[in-house]
């Protein structure tokens, strides 16, 4: 018989967190339901929409397609962890400046994905941004503004 809950330690937004989870819990559900970090969204729960994008050890991944128990000792960054105090992350500022959302549901995933995209060095032209951001769908279709926001964040002085 399955043993039930497993206790794991993972670093979320710079803070070590200890949680006891059923092995079936995805990282997405653990963030939202065990840790109350509801900024990370659940769109499809199948790896197709990117709403659940977080950074795992600095790489962007879909939190709905990985189990929380697999993340023992790993580092997770969510939308709640991007700003430093009142100062928004440059990508957040760029999304505001370019009005890169309508309903906002996809936005946390878009922003985390953009941070990853820029860090990978993929955000050099609008073309590479479109390809690099293709894992994030926006049902409101704010794509032109999203591309501009990522381009702005990637090219402004002091960008991440």
């Amino acid at each position, binding site marked *: 018989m*399955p*043993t039930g809950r*497993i206790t794991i330690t993972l670093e979320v937004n710079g803070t070590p967190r200890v949680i006891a989870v*059923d*092995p*079936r*819990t*995805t990282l997405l*559900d653990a963030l939202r339901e065990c840790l109350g970090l509801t900024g990370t969204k659940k769109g499809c*729960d*199948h*790896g*197709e929409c*990117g709403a659940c*994008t977080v950074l*795992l050890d600095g*790489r*962007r*991944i*879909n939190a709905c*397609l*990985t*189990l929380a*128990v*697999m993340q*023992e000792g790993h580092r997770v960054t969510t939308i709640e962890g991007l700003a430093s105090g009142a100062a928004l992350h440059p990508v957040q500022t760029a999304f505001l400046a370019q009005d890169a959302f309508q309903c906002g549901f996809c936005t946390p995933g878009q922003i985390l*994905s953009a941070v*990853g*995209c820029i860090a*990978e060095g*993929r955000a050099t032209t609008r073309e590479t941004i479109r390809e*690099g951001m*293709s*894992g994030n769908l926006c049902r409101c279709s704010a794509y032109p503004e999203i591309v501009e926001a990522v381009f702005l964040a990637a090219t402004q002085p002091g960008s991440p």
Partner: protein
Amino acid sequence: MIPVQFDYVRATSLNDALKTLAGGDGTKVIAGGHSLIPLLRFRLAQPAKLLDIAGIKELSGISEYKRGLRIGAATTYRDILDSALVRDRYQVMMDATSGIGDVQVRNRGTIGGGVAHADPAADMPGVLLALGASFNLRSKRGKRVVAARDFFQGTFATALAEDELLIDMVVPPLPRGGASAYVSIEQAASGYALAGAAVVVKCSRKTVTECSLALTGLSDRAFLAEAAAKLLVGTKADPDTLQRVGAAAVEGIEITGDIHAPAEYRRHLAAVVVGRAIRAAIDRV
């Protein structure tokens, strides 16, 4: 929530993993989880226990091996794309990998997971067939080597036994002066291939002297099209020849028809991708 409960253990070493798999208690390996977690959600897999292989060092990484490559099973697509060895020598693998899913999927999904899952529309099986790769398998019972051509046995069916772990894939060097390419027509939502062709060619004064051709997405498994590849040898890959090769590539194959593409359309796409992949490879020679 995934409906059926299971246990979870993290392998501490290769030996530890093989011991757990030998237990015969319904243990299933999990690598990136990008194919397995969806199956668990739909109750299409109901393992009693998941064995996480992410911590086993021997299973990931790319290294030079007998003038070719050795690719660990748990190597992510991201690490393949970042590898200078792959970029410099195996364009066919770069082409295919860069089209798998999206960046988030490639950051987590592993080549060994894709191969062991054996989705008939996966991109990498065709590539490994065309390259003549062989797979190292290991269990408590021993080691064995299985050629790619004997590994893929049907939809989600491979030569892997329940207690066996895929360790790595060995890819031989391309023929001297050869070149390669992969071209697919994708299902727009997922990126999976409706039809994909992987090609390795060698030419002498614009005439093809060697060719290896494999297709994916078209039937229950990826397959080598050896008779079709022979038709190309000795030609200059003119449009008529490419048509003939494209038709021959699917001769005798039971082509899949589904909501994404009826069989006749897939047959048409097969000829398109075969032609384009051959041209792309020749242009790189």
